[in-house]
Structures are given as structure tokens and as C-alpha cells.
């Protein structure tokens, strides 16, 4: 490398100081100006994370927030050159760092994921839609769905309740988030396990509803087939109106 190790060490010392704020002596600097860099650098990261996770931030800002941000930026090597993707690294850091995880707030994993996925879905590159037609048969044809979606299973209803009420609501929840084609807006939908199963099947192993019905009867132990059919048809029509179900796959 053309850079001498001494020059490199000075650059490294300044960068490290900006990350952890632990005072350093760097020759040939105005010592009183170094905190300006620490503040500028740290605030960019802090602001980015806070605006990406507004609910989490509001919930933790009085207690734990600053400590988590500090630990994140001083310990984690930020990898993405695109700062709008940094909140993903923050979420991963929290999920995977035992020493920062808050045992008193077990719902934070779900909350961070929920807030990040909204950004990811909103910003992610367009995924091409399948070829579809609007007319078809709900039972015999293969239903086409909007590919720009995330379906997640949660332990806490972070999409329904404020954080202060989550601790007593542990259970199983399914959240469907999808991006509207024209507006790019994100819709959030709480789903039952049955409807989550249907969507997952339509996405992973596309087949006609009549075959999915057979799976449902087997898995969910349904007896009243007509009631099931009516409920599913209502569900499909509802999500057709919402723009999540597009229509029917063209062969």
C-alpha cells in the first residue's frame, strides 16, 4: 500500500474516536475540534436509526435507547454504503448481541422487525408481477398474488398494540405487509393462521384452491367445508379489492 502505516494510524485513530468518543491524542490536530467530528458522525447514525424505528425509539428513549445506539456504533462495523439500509444492520445487531438485548422487553425483536420491514418493502427494488388475468375461478384456477409482500409470524402483536401493552399479549400472530402497485404505499393486515397458510401456499407452491382446501382440511381439521369455502371466498374477494390478490395466473 502506498499509504504509510503512520498516516494510516492517524486516520484509524480519528475514525475510532468518531465511533466510540473515547478521547485520543492525534498529532497535528486541534484537540478542541475533535468532538465536533464525533458529534457530526454520531448524530447522522443516531438520527438515521431513530427515524427508521420511531415506535421503538419513543418507547425506549428515556431508558435504554442511547446505550443501545452507543454500543451499536462503537462495536458494529457498518457495512452498507447506503445509509438507508443501516437500520437493517442495527436490527441484526440487536437480535444477535446478547449483551445488549433487554430481557425485560421480549417484544423488541418483533417490533424492530416490523419497523424495518416497512422500510424494506417501501424502498426495495420492484419485483416483476406474474402474468395474470382478472377473470377466473376461485377454486379451479391458480390465484396470482402481488409479489411485493412480507408475511411474518410474530409472538407479540406489535402491529396492533402500543409497546407498553405488549408484554401481556404473547401469542401467535400473523402480519401481512404489501406494497400497493400504483401508490407504493404499504398496507398492514393482521391475518389468522388459516389465511396466512393460504397466502404462503399460493406464494411457495402455487396450485388451485381446490388442492389447497385438501391441505387445509387435513392440517386444520375443518369439518364444515361449505363454511370454509364461504370464508375463504370472502377473504379472496377482500384482498382482490385491496390489491394484494391480482387475479388468476395465465398459463
Amino acid at each position: 500500500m502506498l499509504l504509510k502505516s503512520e498516516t494510516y494510524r492517524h486516520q484509524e485513530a480519528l475514525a475510532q474516536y468518531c465511533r466510540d468518543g473515547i478521547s485520543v491524542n492525534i498529532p497535528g490536530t486541534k484537540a478542541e475540534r475533535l468532538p465536533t467530528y464525533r458529534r457530526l458522525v454520531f448524530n447522522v447514525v443516531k438520527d438515521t436509526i431513530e427515524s427508521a424505528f420511531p415506535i421503538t425509539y419513543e418507547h425506549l428513549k428515556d431508558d435504554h435507547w442511547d446505550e443501545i445506539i452507543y454500543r451499536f456504533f462503537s462495536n458494529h462495523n457498518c457495512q452498507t454504503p447506503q445509509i438507508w439500509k443501516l437500520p437493517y444492520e442495527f436490527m441484526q445487531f440487536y437480535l444477535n448481541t446478547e449483551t445488549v438485548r433487554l430481557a425485560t422487553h421480549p417484544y423488541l425483536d418483533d417490533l424492530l422487525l416490523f419497523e424495518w420491514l416497512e422500510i424494506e418493502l417501501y424502498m426495495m427494488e420492484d419485483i416483476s408481477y406474474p402474468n395474470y388475468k382478472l377473470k377466473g375461478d376461485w377454486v379451479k384456477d391458480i390465484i396470482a398474488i402481488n409479489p411485493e409482500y412480507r408475511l411474518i409470524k410474530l409472538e407479540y402483536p406489535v402491529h396492533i398494540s402500543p409497546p407498553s401493552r405488549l408484554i401481556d399479549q404473547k401469542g401467535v400472530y400473523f402480519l401481512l405487509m404489501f406494497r400497493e402497485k400504483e401508490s407504493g404505499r404499504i398496507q398492514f393486515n393482521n391475518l389468522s393462521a388459516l389465511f396466512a397458510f393460504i397466502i404462503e401456499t399460493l406464494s411457495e407452491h402455487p396450485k388451485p384452491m381446490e388442492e389447497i382446501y385438501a391441505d387445509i382440511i387435513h392440517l386444520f381439521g375443518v369439518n364444515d367445508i361449505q363454511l370454509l369455502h364461504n370464508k375463504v371466498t370472502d377473504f379472496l374477494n377482500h384482498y382482490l379489492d385491496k390489491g394484494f390478490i391480482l387475479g388468476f395466473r395465465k398459463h
Partner: protein
Amino acid sequence: MNGKVGIGFRRDFADEFLSGNIIQPAFVELAPENWMNIGGYWKKQLNKLAERYAITCHGLSLSIGSPDELDFNFLKDIKDFLKEYNVKIYSEHLSYSKCNNAHLYDLLPIPFRDDAIKHIVDRIKTVQDFIERRIAIENVSYYTPVAAEMDEATFIRTIVEEADCDLLLDVNNVFVNAHNHTYNAEAFIENMPLNKVAYIHMAGHKKVSDDLIIDTHGEAIIDPVYDLFESTLAQMNPVPVLLERDFNIPQPIELQEEIVQLQKICDKQWTKDHAIKI
């Protein structure tokens, strides 16, 4: 775009750019990092923007002064983006924002030293070869020198000349640095390779104490910076001029007034006498 004034594009006032008619820049500048690899709403807005305006790109994360290796995956994304939007000027900061495999997302000052010059010259050449175009390197504002062995002007001039790249001359940064490090701004500009300037930045700043100005891009341009701008233009040929405003966004009409003011100075210095100056 030469001799014309553009403005930095921000999501905060995207609607005004796309549907309004108050702000009338000749082109717009954006940070490719904030706009590449995206889809959905903002991709559509970006495409509309590109239909209406010519685009220049001012990068954030190249970290040309970094001890770290260049990130070629990132550069490939940049290259594709520049091509997709037919971007005429790609500029970056003469600073570093990544060290020891960690991005810092801000502009740290490079030690003004011979070995740093050699290192950076080599990297600029590599980048230019890889993206198959010239890059304009910007003089940044800095609040402390770091282990300097030469003055800032020598450092910048040598890099631009040896790397054979373009210079993005940020006139406000010259003003800010001249104040913070007590040197003469006009003399500094005369020391720049003005024949290599491909692009000019103008912006506002904030004086936080008698001996410290912070380059905030959050205020209107002040008169002494306009004066420095005018005396600079008098010494060089027309290039595109950009108004940077990133924070504390005022009413659109106020931005347009700044664009008009800059354009007047460009016209005064560059159109009455179109003879080659250098």
C-alpha cells in the same frame, strides 16, 4: 449545463420539483447512494425527475481517502446508476468515510501528506478506469488538520493534477476553511487548478463561534461567499453551478431567489466575455 445553476434534490421538496413551477433549476444533483437499488414510490419519482431535469451525482460513500480497499461491488452499482440516468457529472469528496471495514457516513479529514497523495491518486485512477469516466473531486470543509505535512491547497492541487481528474470546487467550503484555519480564501482559490474545475458548489453555513464555522448546508448563502464566487468565476471558464441546501429547508421561493442570484453572477461573469480565460 455549463454556466447554469442547478440545485440538490431532496425528498423534502420533491413535490415542488415534480409538479410545481417555483423552483426552476437547470439541472438537479442527487446522492446516488440514496437512489440506487430502490423501487416503489421513490423510483417512480426519480424517473419523473429524470424526465424533467438533467441529473448530476454527488456521491457520499466512495471514501476515496480511506485506507480500506475500494468496494468494487459498490462502484459497479454506481456505474450502472450513472448509465441508467445518463448522468453527466459524478463527483465525490476528498475525504474518507470508511475505515477498518466500517462506514462512518460523514466526511473525515485526510492527513495532508505525500503518501496520502500517492495513495489517493492511485485510487482515483482505479475508480476512473473502472467506471469509465472522469470523476470530479471536491474540496471538503474540515475542522481540524490531521498530522499535516503540507498546506491544503498543495494537497488538493497535486492530487487533481497527478490523478488527472476533475475538481469540484466548493466555494463555500473554501470560505469556511479559510475562516476556521485563518488563511486567505482568494489566495487559496488562485492556488487551485482552475482549468480542472468541472463543477462548482455553493451553500450556506453556520457560524457557531468566533473561530468556528460549520458547513451545515442549512442556511442561505451569505454575501462574502457570493463575492468569493464572483471573483472565482472571473478567473475560469463556465461550468455547472450547484446550490446545496440539505437542512432547514425554506419556502421554495427563497431557494429560487438564490438560484436567480447565482445565475445573475454566472451571466455577468461568463456571458458578457465568453473568451477562453485559461
